[in-house]
């Protein structure tokens, strides 16, 4: 009886310790949801602000029109997002590659059509992939996720999962930033700094 009591007691302690560990250093949870941690969002916000300040230099704002600046903001946000990904994913590498090409050539890179990309000879048992509805949507999805047009389905799903989490984080960070810029007068922000 004593042993079982002590076991359950230890187990509950173990669970408590594990929960605290989850919040800070649990590698598994960070791997599963890499874009959910606060540190990732802070990293992104900091990089974004620095990059945006560079756009906002006095020479630039007088000559560029509003929609162009918005486009620059979007590109910057995407680029910073991709760099925060640290090259782990295909879509992030594609965004970074696209940005470098745009800088050099100022041309959009036309990608070849992905119709012949799917190698059907190797796929025999995957009935799911053969459904025409699924294939059509797979193609659409491949166009939406950057750099993933020719990617086979399971990799595409992985990329899409990561991409969605990253986009959600991007929205959270940019919303917070916009609220901060809009709602805070200098007195308000100073008040927050002092509190």
């Amino acid at each position, binding site marked *: 009886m004593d042993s079982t009591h002590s076991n359950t007691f230890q187990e509950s302690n173990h669970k408590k310790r594990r929960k605290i560990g989850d919040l800070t250093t649990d590698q598994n949870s960070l791997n599963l949801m890499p874009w959910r941690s606060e540190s990732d969002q802070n990293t992104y916000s900091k990089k974004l602000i620095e990059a945006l300040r560079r756009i906002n230099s006095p020479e630039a704002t007088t000559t560029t029109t509003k929609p162009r600046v918005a486009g620059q903001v979007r590109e910057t946000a995407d680029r910073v997002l991709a760099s925060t990904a640290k090259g782990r994913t295909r879509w992030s590498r594609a965004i970074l590659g696209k940005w470098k090409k745009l800088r050099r050539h100022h041309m959009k890179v036309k990608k070849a059509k992905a119709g012949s990309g799917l190698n059907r000879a190797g796929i025999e048992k995957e009935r799911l992939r053969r459904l025409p509805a699924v294939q059509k949507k797979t193609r659409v999805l491949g166009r939406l996720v950057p750099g993933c047009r020719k990617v086979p389905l399971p990799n595409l799903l992985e990329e899409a999962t990561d991409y969605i989490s990253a986009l959600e984080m991007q929205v959270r960070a940019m919303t917070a930033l916009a609220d901060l810029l809009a709602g805070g007068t*200098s007195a308000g922000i100073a008040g927050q700094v002092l509190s």
Partner: protein
Amino acid sequence: MSSRRSRSRQTSSSRNITDDQIHDLVSKLQQLLPEIRNRSSDKVSASRTLQETCNYIRNLHREVDDLSERLSELLATTDTAQAAIIRNLLMQ
């Protein structure tokens, strides 16, 4: 979890991807989609999941575009002093 990842990489190179693995990935994707997460995920087909995924990504893109526009307007009006204060705030 890491073993699952390495296994999927190995299998993708040898092209022996099973339906189960695809179903696994699809269900992981389903967990992220707000539409499907709130209802029962058992009845959702893969086709529906893909459709919702495309819609969701398009929505997120649109949100980012709107936020970009909002930020570009705000950046034009805010001055460098405020930007420095914000930077300090974020560095804490």
